[in-house]
């Protein structure tokens, strides 16, 4: 409608999550009309990131270079290994603070119906790590969905076979949560996984 270059830009912008045809058009016109410097910077940083960002050889999270900053930080303990599904989950735990071990990012979860098995989520790498004896404790922080639970149970069975202690993050009432308003499934799970104080 506007010419091949603009149309191509609008189509390209739609790869972003949550950006439909209308938003893509608005962004494209805004960049071209009012912020050409910003557009050039966006283009350059995209090319730069796509070129430089890869996966950490140790934990599989997104990083620049061979190993990520967490894996190469000598103050962090390599004996504790926290398993998460995505880099976003890793950032969430890092922001929450209080954890000073290493991570392993699966980049997904086991899902038989989608054909995602142990190889697709890098479990052979994880098993090699467990077999090397450097890990004492595995913390399973996969999502509380059926796929996340399947992944957690599967990994825990492999870890037990390798002689590594396994724990699963707790599930239940959120901080400041009032029982009256919590959905019944969460509450029943909290009831089941109660602990002695």
């Amino acid at each position, binding site marked *: 409608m506007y010419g091949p270059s603009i149309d191509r830009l609008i189509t390209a912008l739609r790869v972003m999550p949550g950006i439909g045809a209308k938003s893509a058009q608005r962004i494209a016109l805004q960049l071209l009309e009012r912020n050409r410097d910003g557009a050039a910077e966006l283009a350059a940083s995209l090319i730069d990131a796509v070129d430089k960002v890869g996966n950490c050889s140790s934990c599989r999270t997104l990083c620049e270079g061979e190993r990520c900053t967490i894996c190469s930080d000598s103050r962090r303990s390599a004996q504790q290994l926290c398993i998460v599904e995505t880099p976003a989950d890793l950032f969430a735990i890092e922001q929450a603070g209080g954890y000073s071990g290493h991570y392993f990012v699966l980049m997904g979860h086991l899902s*038989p*119906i989608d054909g995602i098995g142990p190889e697709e989520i890098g479990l052979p790498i994880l098993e090699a790590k467990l077999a090397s004896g450097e890990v004492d404790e595995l913390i399973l922080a996969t999502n509380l969905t059926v796929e996340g639970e399947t992944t957690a149970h599967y990994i825990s069975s492999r870890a*037990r076979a390798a002689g590594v*202690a396994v724990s699963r993050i707790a599930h239940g009432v959120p901080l400041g949560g009032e029982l009256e*308003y919590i*959905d019944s*499934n969460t509450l029943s799970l909290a009831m*089941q996984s109660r602990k002695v104080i």
Partner: protein
Amino acid sequence: MVDRVEGEAGYLLHSRPYRESSQLVDLFTLNHGRVRAVAKATRQRSKRGASSALLPFCCYQLSWRGRGELKSLVRAEALEPGRFLREQALFSGLYLNELIFRLVHEHDPHPQLYSCYQQLLGQFGYGAAAQPLDEAQLRQFEMVLLDELGYGLVLDCEGVSGKPLLAAGRYDYRADTGAVPGRHFSGEQLLAIAAGELQQPQVRAAAKQLLRTVIDFHLDGKTLHSRALYRHYLDSDTAQPIPFAQRQP
């Protein structure tokens, strides 16, 4: 095609993220069989923090709309508390779901299979004490599934000749023709499977092999991923849990 269905009983077989906050759900319902629908905004949390995402293994009252193949789920009310399956129970549950997902055609009702599925899920119970299904129950489900799809096992007579099976005879079983004289199974085993008498380990092993062959034939080259996963899991599950020392963060 039905425009609108209200209050249909059904289970979630599988869901995957769709767009920003929705889910693409595969449902197994009593009167409409397998149905695929979009469940809008189920990945968002409400202001109170409650999640409205559907859980598998839990019976819902479902209402949907739409003319095409892909329906739009408008309401889902849980009819029972959520089931949180663990360990072996979880893996056998996934196996049941994948069997239905791969073999049952969309919009073909199978009330008999539905009630068998519901009954097996009932065996799991609720809460932490969920018991895994035993082999006989899994085989029973597989047989009901094949019967319902019109691929039921024929175990009273030979496939080609129509002669009755003899307990003393030896047979092979071909998914397309039925039992033929051969060496894999004894007539006694096949007759026991037909009668649903799966107490003996040899009969269970024969039933497992027989049903696997027939199911694989009807899968038409598709793989049952949950089966391999379950086997891997069982292989490594013999190890005892290692005590986890409570650490202070």
